[in-house]
């Protein structure tokens, strides 16, 4: 009988089993799981910083926090090459159509992280303003929200890891929403 060994711990959460054989080993898994696993570990973010949160995003990319440890370091300047858009900062009425266009230009599958209070809900600019969009989810669908004004780099890292978990679970944004509706 083959020895079934889950190699999750040794291969960064690889979703499969290793069956030891005398000549080496056989690896079994579902193709969908492997694709999601690969996808979650090479998320390319779009360089999209509108205000203060962009500085904390830069801090996350820089030496001390170093998001390349998790595979996010390939920040792209064009939406056509990006997988995830990190909305770092306030979205105002004039910027909203631009954000929508950037999102439309990204290739599927695409993900959105709303970083900070402004992108989540308008934050400090919720009251008494005439020009701020009260949350980026009025414009494009958002996968992960990060609280804070601005969030610490650790918070952004945590959000990105949450996004990885979400991708690995294999469900789309719409599927998760439907599931929550049933519950």
């Amino acid at each position, binding site marked *: 009988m083959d020895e079934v060994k889950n190699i999750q711990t040794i291969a960064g959460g690889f979703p499969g089993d290793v069956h030891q054989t005398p000549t080496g080993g056989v690896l079994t898994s579902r193709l969908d799981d492997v694709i999601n696993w690969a996808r979650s570990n090479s998320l390319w973010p779009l360089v999209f910083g509108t205000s203060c949160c962009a500085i904390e995003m*830069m801090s996350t990319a820089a030496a001390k926090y170093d998001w390349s440890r998790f595979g996010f370091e390939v920040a792209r*300047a064009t939406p056509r090459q990006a997988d995830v858009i990190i909305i770092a900062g*306030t979205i105002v009425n004039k910027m909203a159509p*631009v954000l929508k266009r950037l999102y439309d230009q990204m290739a599927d599958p695409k993900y959105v992280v709303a970083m900070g209070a402004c992108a989540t809900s308008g934050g400090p600019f919720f*009251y*008494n303003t005439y020009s701020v969009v009260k949350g980026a989810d009025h414009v494009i669908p958002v996968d992960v929200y990060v609280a804070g004004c601005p969030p610490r780099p650790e918070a952004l890292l945590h959000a990105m890891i949450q996004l990885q978990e979400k991708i690995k679970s294999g469900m789309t944004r719409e599927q998760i929403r439907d599931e929550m509706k049933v519950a």
Partner: protein
Amino acid sequence: MYRQTEILQDATQVSPLNGGGDLEGAGDLIINVGPQHPSTHGVLHLVITLNGETIKKVEPHLGYIHRSIEKMCESLTFRQFIYVTSKMDYLSSHINNHGCCLCVEKGLQIEVPERAQVIRVLMDELTRLASHQLWWGALGMDVGALTPFFHAFRERELINDIFEETCGTRLTMNYMVPGGVMADLHPNFQRRVHEFIKQFKLKIDEYDELLTDNIIFKNRMQGVGVLSAADAVSYGCTGPVARGSNVVCDIRKLYPYEVYNKLQFDEVIETGGDCYARYMVRMKEMRQSLSIIEQLIDQVPEGEFQAKTKAVLKLPKGEYYSRVETARGEFGVYIVSEGGTTPYRIKFRSPGFSNLSALDHMARGGKIGDLIAIMGSLDLVIPDIDR
């Protein structure tokens, strides 16, 4: 060396726009840079008219991060509105708060305790250092060198840690309140700052080795985006942009506030007027800021960190103006009060807006690659421009 007033009297020195000729003639190409573009440092939108690779016109379009902060301030009290100003020039948030506090204190004639004054100046200079470090890293990235970014952020994190201990956050601190500062210094503050000074003094020489004397970098910066002293004044440039063009405009020297008149430091002036001169001004300013911090860090006087103020502040009817020197230039706060608890009107004079207006003048006749270097040397913060 020019003084602003001398130049204004002689308007004939203002040179016509170079490049000239017919705009948008045959064969011209109009391209958009931004609003989402890595070199615009945010969401600036530039419409550039090109002839080949030569720039004929640069037209900045604003408003992509206009958050109506001035209007918002009208419905916030004189204590509350200060926190919104941290989000304008988020790289000089302490200094923005400082300017607003000075204006409110002027109206209420509050005497700020000396300890609070020294703490404020210390925080201002640390902010200036952090801002210039980030600018240095970003400028390196703009002209194609990624390494400076990581070097700059290594030292910047030390300053962020110092802020976090005393103020509670890393970026938008809201530490200054009318009458002083919100909380006393953390017991570790002095030790941490000494450690930072010790490390940064070594590293700033490393910065010089990496970029300042780098021949590739020099070729990208020298003679590019020249701004004459008369033009700098006529466009209203302030801060390192104007000082790189031989204009005396440091508010800390001309209109000293807090304890700046008791300190020994030089106003850095360069004569070149090109990108490299602006670069050198900021590099030398970092050393000046270090020297200011060194003078003050062991001399923080004992006493209160906040003057006693009323719970509800009511500014007497009238108009008030105060100005401070941020990392980008002169930041002015103009408050019109009707005698109530909220301002009737607030206007901020942000340095970035005026500095950006000189971009067209500097870029005309240059190549499109130079435009990125010029923008990097202007050190623009877009929410500061749009407000």
